[in-house]
């Protein structure tokens, strides 16, 4: 056999900046493609459950209970909760994808395929987070289609919808990444979604306007980041929000930047991997 070092990666010599950038882009894309392949390969676990759950929510909360609720925030109840239900699926799926994929790779040790490569840690984090966002957006799209079977969705501000969904999925994908870095077993992968994510989402204004709550509960709700995400997203559809939309986008952007820095920092220190 004959082995040559014809590729730039193997040469190990100082490569031009654009070649390094291109190599990193290929690495990033490879992680995304691998994550997408995983999502599609196990579609029964990754995509179907959220569609079923959303359908149940629409049937029970929308059609059965919603009829008695009447209007919320000036809209039919079904129309009011639709953006929240879409966002709920984006949040849980973005988080779940990264936490299970990254922890699985760590647990079965094939994460080493990536960590021995020259890809810098910020690219690895971006790749996994991108994979989580892909699943969040895919499932979000499926739930949007499901919601259209039950209600009419108007669009008030496309950019707000896109920005809210992208930032939210990025924030929760990063959260899933950090959870996976620290997790030592599969129980610890499930703790945060069960005990933190679900309560935050249910109290995050998905099913109600916080104007229905007593004043102290409204103040408490404002501390919940999911409330800002759901309301920014709902604003994009309905043009109505319980919170200041500008502030909501600021919180999301800040949270995404801070969590990204934390995730890369953890990777640089090798927490849970190289210690």
């Amino acid at each position, binding site marked *: 056999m004959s*082995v*040559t070092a014809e590729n*730039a*990666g*193997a040469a*190990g010599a100082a490569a031009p900046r654009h070649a390094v950038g291109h190599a990193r882009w290929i690495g990033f894309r490879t*992680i995304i493609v691998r994550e997408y392949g995983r999502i599609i390969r196990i579609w029964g676990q990754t995509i179907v459950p959220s569609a079923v759950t959303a359908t149940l929510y629409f049937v029970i909360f929308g059609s059965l209970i919603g009829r008695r609720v009447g209007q919320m925030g000036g809209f039919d109840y079904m129309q009011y909760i639709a953006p929240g239900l879409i966002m709920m699926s984006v949040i849980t799926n973005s988080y779940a994808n990264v936490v299970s994929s990254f922890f699985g790779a760590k647990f079965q*040790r094939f994460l080493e395929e990536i960590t021995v*490569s020259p890809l810098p840690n910020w690219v690895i984090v971006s790749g996994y987070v991108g994979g989580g966002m892909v699943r969040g957006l895919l499932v979000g799209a499926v739930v949007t289609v499901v919601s259209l079977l039950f209600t009419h969705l108007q669009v008030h501000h496309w950019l707000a919808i896109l920005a809210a969904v992208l930032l939210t999925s990025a924030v929760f994908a990063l959260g899933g990444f950090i959870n996976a870095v620290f997790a030592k077993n599969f129980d610890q992968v499930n703790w945060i979604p069960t005990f933190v994510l679900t309560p935050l989402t249910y109290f995050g204004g998905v099913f109600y306007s916080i104007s229905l709550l007593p004043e102290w509960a409204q103040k408490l709700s404002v501390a919940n980041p999911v409330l800002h995400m759901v309301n920014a997203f709902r604003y994009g559809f309905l043009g109505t929000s319980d919170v200041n939309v500008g502030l909501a986008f600021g919180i999301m952007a800040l949270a995404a930047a801070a969590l990204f820095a934390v995730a890369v920092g953890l990777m640089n220190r090798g927490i849970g991997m190289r210690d």
Partner: protein
Amino acid sequence: MHALSVRGLVKTYKNGVQALRGVDLDVEQGDFFAMLGPNGAGKSTLIGIVTSLVNKTAGKVSVFGHDMDTDLEAAKACIGVVPQELNLNLFETPETIVVNQAGFYGIPRKIARERAEKYLGKLSLWDRRDKMARSLSGGMKRRLMIARALVHEPRLLILDEPTAGVDIEIRRSMWEFLRELNASGTTIILTTHYLEEAESLCRNIAIIDGGRIAESDRMDRLLRKLHTESFVLTLRNPLARAPASAGYDIDLVDEHTLEVEVSKDRNLNDLFARLSADGIEVLSMRNKVNRLEEIFMRLVDKSGAGAAAAGGNGPDAVAARGVVQGAPHGHGGRHP
């Protein structure tokens, strides 16, 4: 410039175990280098640090002149690694695994596919390219890890016990493959428990024990340090007791088998003349143990005694040494 240069490498794990206690090591470009040591000696920790899978406590590592502290990406690009334990995604196919690995090294997909075909083909896995990795046999999984490590055509290939659990036929074909790879210019570092493997393949060797390099030399020079050699003789006629022969240490293993220890300053003609004079007819003869194994055991014994005198290497390492010393000695065998 060395392919690998290690200076003062120290690793202390959080539980207090000192896996490396100041390792200095140089591996020349183009070398086929063996790293031997009992379980718990620090080999895998050393490899883990060189491949960025383990954080070091202190020391310097450079790969083809790239300092891993300041030029990590360039250093990593030079290395391909085949780890001791399986680290494959068992739910992916061999082709996907190898093509993705190329992607992590920035190799475009078209070239990655060509290389996947090349290396999976060379390792006799191309016809299994679209089967799930979990369906492959143990030997196939090991070969897949080698194909994966080669897809970016590294200048330094590190193999941590690549032939463990592989049958003899596949092991021999892997040796041939590695020889060709080395002949084409790839520097190879090999850790193995099969000492015959190291003796057969490698030009230079380091024996690591208790987190320190116990010996580092050229293979032939190290083997010359062994002053005696043991042979097992199979006899045509049964013997009741070992013949007395001055200058040779002869044991009767059973009535048809003798073990003879011959020092380097004696010749075998003399031994056979004496046996013939005693009417003993020898049907066959072979080495009792692999020569490298003999040196290895002596060095590890010596180093182990030193470490014990100095307070030992911690319970894990000491226990592991006990396992190695008590283990049957692979090739050559103790029993005829």
